[in-house]
């Protein structure tokens, strides 16, 4: 590339990178550094000694942390899978031309438009064991059958997963819909003329062409799912008995409640590393061709 071109492209990307490095890059480095010390804000007399990787060793030996990791993985796998699936179905549906399509699009946007904290309060209300509308919806007035959703480990995790799927399927739907909208209609028309059926059209035209959008949805949903916090904090506070104590909630409690900044930073860095490895895997396996120019 010519020097002038390099300068040109550099100018294009510099502002974005500057903002990112200042506000995200620097905090990441700071967290890394903090995670190598023992910092307890309530005990400044400890003088925050450098402890190397001791926090990470403690994390691996901490049964609560390991349990949190397991819970979070279950959460991520389940929500990402269903959100992508439901998102795909919704996108395909909205993409069709039919009367009232805009209204459906508006409906689908509603869950995503509600702030997560409000949605979390909403689900805390809906999943209540005596006056919750979910119980009423399923069982009617038969109060004896009502399930105490947030009071049992299994159903509490289910409640959080369900709330997240409800809220975020629209995210995947929007992304995939955008991907659908740039597929030229001529491809479908040509395929129809050639006698291809719906499934065949989907497999050979739609699916390959929305893979980039799917990859973006998969990547970003996984990243966000690993950092789930509001739902667990508001609905169950991590209980009962740590059954919904997802990683970032555990990190929050360590950092902001107990004041263990070093250990909490180690939790954050661990989340970061895990997600990074996953993302690299995704891109390697699924998206290698995405980032090349279209043939």
């Amino acid at each position, binding site marked *: 590339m010519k020097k002038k071109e390099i300068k040109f492209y550099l100018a294009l990307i510099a502002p974005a990178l500057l903002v990112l490095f200042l506000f995200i890059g620097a905090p990441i480095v700071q967290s890394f550094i903090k995670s190598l010390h023992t910092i307890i804000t*309530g005990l400044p007399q400890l003088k925050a000694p450098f402890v190397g990787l001791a926090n990470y060793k403690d994390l691996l030996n901490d049964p609560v942390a390991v349990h949190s990791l397991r819970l979070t993985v279950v959460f991520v796998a389940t929500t990402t899978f269903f959100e992508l699936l439901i998102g795909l179905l919704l996108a395909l549906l909205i993409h069709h031309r039919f009367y009232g399509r805009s209204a459906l699009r508006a409906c689908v946007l509603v869950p995503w438009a509600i702030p997560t904290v409000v949605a979390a309060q909403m689900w805390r209300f809906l999943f209540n064991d005596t006056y919750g509308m979910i119980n009423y919806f399923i069982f009617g007035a038969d109060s004896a059958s009502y399930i105490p959703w947030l009071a049992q480990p299994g159903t509490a995790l289910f409640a959080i997963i369900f709330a997240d799927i409800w809220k975020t399927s629209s995210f995947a739907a929007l992304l995939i819909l955008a991907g659908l909208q740039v597929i030229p209609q001529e491809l479908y028309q040509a395929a129809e003329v050639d006698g291809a059926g719906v499934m065949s059209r989907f497999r050979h035209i739609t699916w390959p062409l929305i893979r980039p959008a799917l990859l973006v949805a998969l990547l970003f949903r996984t990243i966000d799912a690993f950092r789930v916090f509001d739902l667990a904090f508001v609905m169950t506070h991590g209980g009962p*008995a740590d059954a919904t104590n997802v990683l970032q909630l555990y990190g929050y409690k360590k950092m902001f409640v107990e004041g263990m900044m070093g250990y909490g930073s180690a939790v954050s860095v661990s989340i970061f590393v895990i997600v990074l490895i996953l993302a690299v895997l995704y891109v390697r396996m699924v998206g290698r061709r995405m980032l090349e120019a279209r043939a």
Partner: protein
Amino acid sequence: MKKAVIITTLSMLVSAVFIPCRPYPLNAQEPDTIVFLTWKPNQPEVWEKLIKEFHHDNPDLRVKVQVGPHSSTEYHAIVTQRLKNRDDSLDLFFMDVTWPPEFANAGWALDLTAWFSEREQQKFLPGPVAANSYEGGIYGVPCYLAAGLFYYRKDLLDKHEFRPPSTWDEMLFQGKRILEAEADPLLNIYSGQFKQYEGLVCDMMEFIWSNNGGVFDTGSGGVIINRAESVKAVTFVRDHIIGNAAPRGAISYEEPESLDLFIQGKSVFHRNWPYAWEVANNPEKSKIAGKVGVGRLPSFEGHESASTLGGWQFGINRWSRHHEKAWRFIKHMTSFKSQKILAVEASLAPARKAVYLDRELRAKRPNLTAFLPAFERARPRPLSPVYPMISQELQRFFSRAVSDKGSEIPQLADTAAKRIKKIRDLAESIRK
């Protein structure tokens, strides 16, 4: 058309660059402003009135109020974030009753001994004053306090000619009788807070203390959470309260859910803070208005009833540059006059003893005067700069113990005791 789009986009871009940089006058700080970071109060009008009076009496000062969430955890996060960064733009804040040792040891709260003398301290209830004391200094001034109270359906108890129960077993017995007679399948005996949060510790400590158990032994200071008395109380809750006297869902209740159960008429007995009295007797919100009685929490046979101390205290930021001015505000807010206004108009239990003798208070808020014995007896949770870490261990222990019918409580208690001892030893190590 395309030109129009281009021009619109460009002008949006340009304005986008300039709008955010317009200095929004939120940070204007006049020289004599003191910044008070508080939470959203239940009756903002009362607090505004008190602040207005302060402005009137102190025309040279202005109080600027910043609002955080009322959730103790979240408010703690915001306040500590600023204090640990030595933020001098904050002068005054509130502290929950368990925070003063932490704030004192970390050097965040100013030692108020110079202004809040021993003689002054005597004018306040001893429990909250003790909670604000640490290593010989006093780091906060109590504003209002709370204690766990026992609410019950007076009408149902009268119907069966029961007196309010004095032991937990008696409560279960009365409850069973009432349930049988009422034949309402949705009625429960008891309602309390058992979600895995700080409220769980408050509720459980009341059970444990009322069996002469505890976390630390008052004499020796040793860890006694795994002693037989404590374990028995926890086992009692698991076996007879959760899923029995109280619905299984109580494990997901904070104060609002548990109170809702009571005021919808679906619980005979209820444990909550003093605020619940107003709500339960408010016909707009409650279906049992006028049918509510309140008294001491029951205890185990042969032991004393216990209730957990709660409430909020004022603190001054050590890094603030307006110590003396901040103190003037505290002095005003904790004066007899202000305390009485808080009590009469906002129904917040004052920390100043004299207010309870006031005739107007006794007439308008007889409930507060009736609560005084409970307030005087209320017990603080362990006072330690590392209380948050201890609390997390307790929450974990209690939640595991009561939410699983097959839990091995002695084992869980031993684990909790070991971890709590480690935390306490860590805190002790800094004294050397």
